[in-house]
Protein backbone atom coordinates (compact mmCIF):
# COMPACT_ATOMS: atom_id res chain seq x y z
CA UNK A 1 0.00 0.00 0.00
CA UNK A 2 1.27 3.46 -0.87
CA UNK A 3 2.39 5.65 2.05
CA UNK A 4 -0.44 8.17 1.84
CA UNK A 5 -3.03 5.41 1.47
CA UNK A 6 -1.77 3.93 4.75
CA UNK A 7 -2.14 7.29 6.45
CA UNK A 8 -5.61 7.97 4.99
CA UNK A 9 -6.82 4.55 6.12
CA UNK A 10 -5.50 5.11 9.64
CA UNK A 11 -7.05 8.60 9.80
CA UNK A 12 -10.51 7.37 8.80
CA UNK A 13 -10.56 4.83 11.62
CA UNK A 14 -10.46 7.61 14.20
CA UNK A 15 -10.91 11.08 12.66
CA UNK A 16 -9.17 13.72 14.75
CA UNK A 17 -10.51 17.17 15.54
CA UNK A 18 -8.20 19.50 13.62
CA UNK A 19 -8.22 23.23 14.37
CA UNK A 20 -7.53 25.52 11.39
CA UNK A 21 -6.66 29.02 12.65
CA UNK A 22 -5.74 30.19 9.13
CA UNK A 23 -9.05 29.06 7.67
CA UNK A 24 -9.67 32.28 5.72
CA UNK A 25 -6.70 31.30 3.57
CA UNK A 26 -8.04 29.74 0.38
CA UNK A 27 -5.72 26.73 0.38
CA UNK A 28 -6.29 26.06 4.08
CA UNK A 29 -10.06 26.17 3.68
CA UNK A 30 -9.81 23.84 0.70
CA UNK A 31 -7.64 21.41 2.68
CA UNK A 32 -10.05 21.54 5.62
CA UNK A 33 -13.06 20.98 3.37
CA UNK A 34 -11.65 18.12 1.30
CA UNK A 35 -10.19 16.23 4.23
CA UNK A 36 -13.36 16.77 6.26
CA UNK A 37 -15.64 15.74 3.39
CA UNK A 38 -13.62 12.51 2.92
CA UNK A 39 -13.97 11.72 6.59
CA UNK A 40 -10.26 11.88 7.43
CA UNK A 41 -10.71 14.60 10.04
CA UNK A 42 -13.26 16.75 11.86
CA UNK A 43 -12.24 20.24 10.66
CA UNK A 44 -12.73 23.13 13.09
CA UNK A 45 -12.41 26.57 11.51
CA UNK A 46 -11.11 29.11 14.04
CA UNK A 47 -11.45 32.80 13.25
CA UNK A 48 -13.97 35.55 12.65
CA UNK A 49 -17.29 33.76 12.17
CA UNK A 50 -18.78 36.36 9.88
CA UNK A 51 -15.76 36.36 7.54
CA UNK A 52 -15.57 32.56 7.52
CA UNK A 53 -19.25 32.14 6.72
CA UNK A 54 -18.97 34.63 3.88
CA UNK A 55 -15.94 32.88 2.45
CA UNK A 56 -17.54 29.45 2.73
CA UNK A 57 -20.46 30.70 0.68
CA UNK A 58 -18.25 32.42 -1.89
CA UNK A 59 -16.13 29.30 -2.30
CA UNK A 60 -19.10 26.96 -2.45
CA UNK A 61 -18.30 24.79 0.57
CA UNK A 62 -21.05 23.10 2.55
CA UNK A 63 -20.99 24.57 6.06
CA UNK A 64 -22.02 21.32 7.78
CA UNK A 65 -18.67 19.71 6.87
CA UNK A 66 -17.08 22.02 9.45
CA UNK A 67 -17.34 23.01 13.06
CA UNK A 68 -16.78 26.73 13.54
CA UNK A 69 -15.26 28.65 16.44
CA UNK A 70 -15.58 32.42 16.63
CA UNK A 71 -12.59 34.07 18.34
CA UNK A 72 -14.96 36.91 19.34
CA UNK A 73 -17.03 34.48 21.43
CA UNK A 74 -15.95 35.67 24.87
CA UNK A 75 -18.10 33.09 26.69
CA UNK A 76 -16.37 30.19 24.98
CA UNK A 77 -12.98 31.93 25.28
CA UNK A 78 -13.41 32.37 29.05
CA UNK A 79 -14.44 28.72 29.41
CA UNK A 80 -11.26 27.68 27.58
CA UNK A 81 -9.14 29.94 29.77
CA UNK A 82 -10.71 28.55 32.93
CA UNK A 83 -9.89 25.02 31.81
CA UNK A 84 -6.39 26.05 30.69
CA UNK A 85 -5.29 27.72 33.94
CA UNK A 86 -6.66 24.80 35.95
CA UNK A 87 -3.99 22.58 34.37
CA UNK A 88 -0.66 22.05 36.08
CA UNK A 89 2.41 23.93 34.89
CA UNK A 90 0.68 26.51 32.69
CA UNK A 91 2.77 29.51 31.74
CA UNK A 92 0.27 32.26 30.97
CA UNK A 93 -2.28 33.82 33.33
CA UNK A 94 -5.81 34.87 32.40
CA UNK A 95 -5.14 38.45 31.28
CA UNK A 96 -2.20 37.42 29.13
CA UNK A 97 -4.27 34.63 27.58
CA UNK A 98 -7.12 37.01 26.71
CA UNK A 99 -4.61 39.18 24.84
CA UNK A 100 -2.95 36.26 23.08
CA UNK A 101 -6.24 34.62 22.10
CA UNK A 102 -7.23 37.52 19.91
CA UNK A 103 -4.93 35.76 17.48
CA UNK A 104 -6.70 32.68 16.06
CA UNK A 105 -3.39 30.77 16.15
CA UNK A 106 -3.21 31.10 19.94
CA UNK A 107 -6.95 30.52 20.30
CA UNK A 108 -6.57 27.21 18.46
CA UNK A 109 -3.57 26.22 20.57
CA UNK A 110 -5.52 26.83 23.80
CA UNK A 111 -8.33 24.70 22.40
CA UNK A 112 -5.83 21.94 21.78
CA UNK A 113 -4.28 22.30 25.21
CA UNK A 114 -7.67 21.64 26.84
CA UNK A 115 -8.65 18.87 24.39
CA UNK A 116 -11.25 20.88 22.46
CA UNK A 117 -9.11 20.04 19.43
CA UNK A 118 -6.71 17.12 18.92
CA UNK A 119 -4.25 19.03 16.76
CA UNK A 120 -3.71 22.48 15.22
CA UNK A 121 -2.81 22.81 11.54
CA UNK A 122 -1.09 26.06 10.55
CA UNK A 123 1.93 27.53 8.80
CA UNK A 124 0.68 29.13 5.59
CA UNK A 125 0.01 32.67 6.82
CA UNK A 126 2.07 32.33 9.99
CA UNK A 127 5.71 31.33 9.67
CA UNK A 128 6.90 27.92 10.86
CA UNK A 129 8.75 29.71 13.65
CA UNK A 130 5.59 31.54 14.76
CA UNK A 131 3.64 28.29 14.88
CA UNK A 132 6.34 26.44 16.82
CA UNK A 133 6.78 29.28 19.31
CA UNK A 134 3.02 29.51 19.85
CA UNK A 135 2.84 25.76 20.45
CA UNK A 136 5.73 25.89 22.90
CA UNK A 137 4.17 28.79 24.77
CA UNK A 138 0.63 27.43 25.02
CA UNK A 139 0.94 23.64 24.81
CA UNK A 140 4.55 22.99 25.84
CA UNK A 141 6.70 19.97 25.16
CA UNK A 142 5.73 16.39 25.90
CA UNK A 143 7.46 15.01 29.03
CA UNK A 144 10.83 13.55 28.07
CA UNK A 145 11.19 15.71 24.97
CA UNK A 146 13.92 18.32 25.21
CA UNK A 147 13.66 20.05 21.85
CA UNK A 148 11.16 20.60 19.05
CA UNK A 149 12.07 18.75 15.85
CA UNK A 150 10.56 17.39 12.67
CA UNK A 151 10.83 14.48 10.29
CA UNK A 152 10.56 14.37 6.53
CA UNK A 153 9.04 11.21 5.04
CA UNK A 154 10.47 10.25 1.68
CA UNK A 155 9.30 7.65 -0.83
CA UNK A 156 12.41 7.14 -2.97
CA UNK A 157 12.08 5.20 -6.24
CA UNK A 158 14.85 2.61 -6.44
CA UNK A 159 15.76 2.82 -2.77
CA UNK A 160 15.52 -0.43 -0.82
CA UNK A 161 15.85 -0.01 2.94
CA UNK A 162 14.32 -1.77 5.94
CA UNK A 163 10.99 -0.14 5.09
CA UNK A 164 11.21 -0.62 1.33
CA UNK A 165 11.40 2.64 -0.59
CA UNK A 166 10.46 4.74 2.47
CA UNK A 167 12.97 6.77 4.47
CA UNK A 168 12.39 9.14 7.39
CA UNK A 169 14.83 12.02 7.77
CA UNK A 170 15.07 13.86 11.06
CA UNK A 171 15.49 16.78 11.52
CA UNK A 172 15.51 18.76 8.29
CA UNK A 173 13.35 21.75 9.17
CA UNK A 174 13.72 22.99 12.72
CA UNK A 175 17.03 22.48 14.53
CA UNK A 176 20.24 24.00 13.24
CA UNK A 177 23.54 22.65 14.60
CA UNK A 178 22.06 20.44 17.35
CA UNK A 179 24.29 19.37 20.20
CA UNK A 180 24.87 15.64 20.75
CA UNK A 181 22.18 15.66 23.46
CA UNK A 182 19.72 17.44 21.17
CA UNK A 183 20.50 15.05 18.32
CA UNK A 184 19.69 12.12 20.60
CA UNK A 185 16.39 13.78 21.54
CA UNK A 186 15.62 14.35 17.84
CA UNK A 187 16.33 10.68 17.09
CA UNK A 188 14.02 9.52 19.87
CA UNK A 189 11.22 11.82 18.67
CA UNK A 190 11.70 10.63 15.09
CA UNK A 191 11.42 6.99 16.16
CA UNK A 192 8.30 7.69 18.22
CA UNK A 193 6.71 9.46 15.25
CA UNK A 194 7.32 6.73 12.67
CA UNK A 195 6.19 4.08 15.15
CA UNK A 196 2.94 5.94 15.86
CA UNK A 197 2.29 7.00 12.26
CA UNK A 198 3.38 3.94 10.32
CA UNK A 199 3.91 1.16 12.85
CA UNK A 200 7.65 0.97 12.18
CA UNK A 201 9.53 -0.97 14.83
CA UNK A 202 13.14 -1.96 15.43
CA UNK A 203 12.00 -5.45 16.37
CA UNK A 204 12.87 -8.10 13.76
CA UNK A 205 9.78 -9.47 11.96
Amino acid sequence: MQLLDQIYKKAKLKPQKVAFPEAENEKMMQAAYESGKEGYIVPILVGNRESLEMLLEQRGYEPDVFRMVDVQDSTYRDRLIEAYVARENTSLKEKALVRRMQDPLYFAMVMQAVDEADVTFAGIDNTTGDVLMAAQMIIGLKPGIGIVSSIGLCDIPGFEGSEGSLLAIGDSAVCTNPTAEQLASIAISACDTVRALLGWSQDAP
Partner: protein
Amino acid sequence: MEKQELDQKVLGFVSSAYKKPLEELSLETNIKKDLGGTSLFMVGLVSLIENELDVLLPLPTAAGCKTIGDLVDAVARLM
Protein backbone atom coordinates in the same frame (compact mmCIF):
# COMPACT_ATOMS: atom_id res chain seq x y z
CA MET B 1 7.18 52.49 35.78
CA GLU B 2 10.65 54.00 36.13
CA LYS B 3 13.36 52.71 33.76
CA GLN B 4 15.51 51.41 36.59
CA GLU B 5 12.61 49.44 38.04
CA LEU B 6 11.83 47.96 34.63
CA ASP B 7 15.50 47.03 34.15
CA GLN B 8 15.49 45.15 37.44
CA LYS B 9 12.21 43.39 36.74
CA VAL B 10 13.32 42.18 33.30
CA LEU B 11 16.70 41.06 34.65
CA GLY B 12 14.80 39.08 37.27
CA PHE B 13 12.57 37.49 34.65
CA VAL B 14 15.62 36.50 32.56
CA SER B 15 17.28 35.02 35.65
CA SER B 16 14.17 32.96 36.36
CA ALA B 17 13.52 31.83 32.79
CA TYR B 18 17.11 30.95 31.93
CA LYS B 19 17.95 29.71 35.45
CA LYS B 20 20.99 31.97 35.72
CA PRO B 21 22.03 33.80 38.90
CA LEU B 22 20.91 37.41 38.82
CA GLU B 23 24.39 38.65 39.71
CA GLU B 24 25.74 37.15 36.45
CA LEU B 25 23.35 39.20 34.33
CA SER B 26 23.41 42.79 33.09
CA LEU B 27 21.73 44.88 30.43
CA GLU B 28 24.74 44.12 28.21
CA THR B 29 24.29 40.37 28.47
CA ASN B 30 23.93 38.89 24.98
CA ILE B 31 20.89 36.62 25.11
CA LYS B 32 22.01 34.08 22.48
CA LYS B 33 25.77 34.06 23.10
CA ASP B 34 25.86 34.41 26.89
CA LEU B 35 22.68 32.60 27.89
CA GLY B 36 22.29 30.04 25.09
CA GLY B 37 19.24 27.86 25.51
CA THR B 38 16.52 26.82 23.12
CA SER B 39 13.44 28.75 22.04
CA LEU B 40 11.66 27.16 24.99
CA PHE B 41 13.59 29.46 27.34
CA MET B 42 12.62 32.51 25.27
CA VAL B 43 8.97 31.43 25.31
CA GLY B 44 9.11 31.04 29.09
CA LEU B 45 10.66 34.50 29.42
CA VAL B 46 8.00 36.15 27.26
CA SER B 47 5.27 34.43 29.28
CA LEU B 48 6.75 35.85 32.50
CA ILE B 49 6.96 39.35 31.01
CA GLU B 50 3.39 39.22 29.74
CA ASN B 51 1.98 37.88 32.99
CA GLU B 52 3.75 40.34 35.24
CA LEU B 53 3.84 43.51 33.12
CA ASP B 54 0.47 43.26 31.36
CA VAL B 55 1.82 43.62 27.82
CA LEU B 56 1.67 41.55 24.67
CA LEU B 57 5.24 41.02 23.49
CA PRO B 58 5.38 39.46 20.02
CA LEU B 59 7.68 36.44 20.13
CA PRO B 60 9.62 37.47 16.98
CA THR B 61 10.28 40.87 18.62
CA ALA B 62 11.64 39.20 21.75
CA ALA B 63 13.67 36.70 19.73
CA GLY B 64 15.16 39.56 17.72
CA CYS B 65 16.57 41.32 20.80
CA LYS B 66 20.34 40.97 21.00
CA THR B 67 20.87 41.98 24.63
CA ILE B 68 18.77 42.13 27.78
CA GLY B 69 18.91 45.92 27.41
CA ASP B 70 17.34 45.62 23.95
CA LEU B 71 14.62 43.47 25.48
CA VAL B 72 13.95 46.10 28.17
CA ASP B 73 13.62 48.75 25.46
CA ALA B 74 11.22 46.55 23.48
CA VAL B 75 9.06 46.04 26.58
CA ALA B 76 9.18 49.75 27.47
CA ARG B 77 7.78 50.64 24.05
CA LEU B 78 4.73 48.49 24.81
CA MET B 79 3.99 50.05 28.18
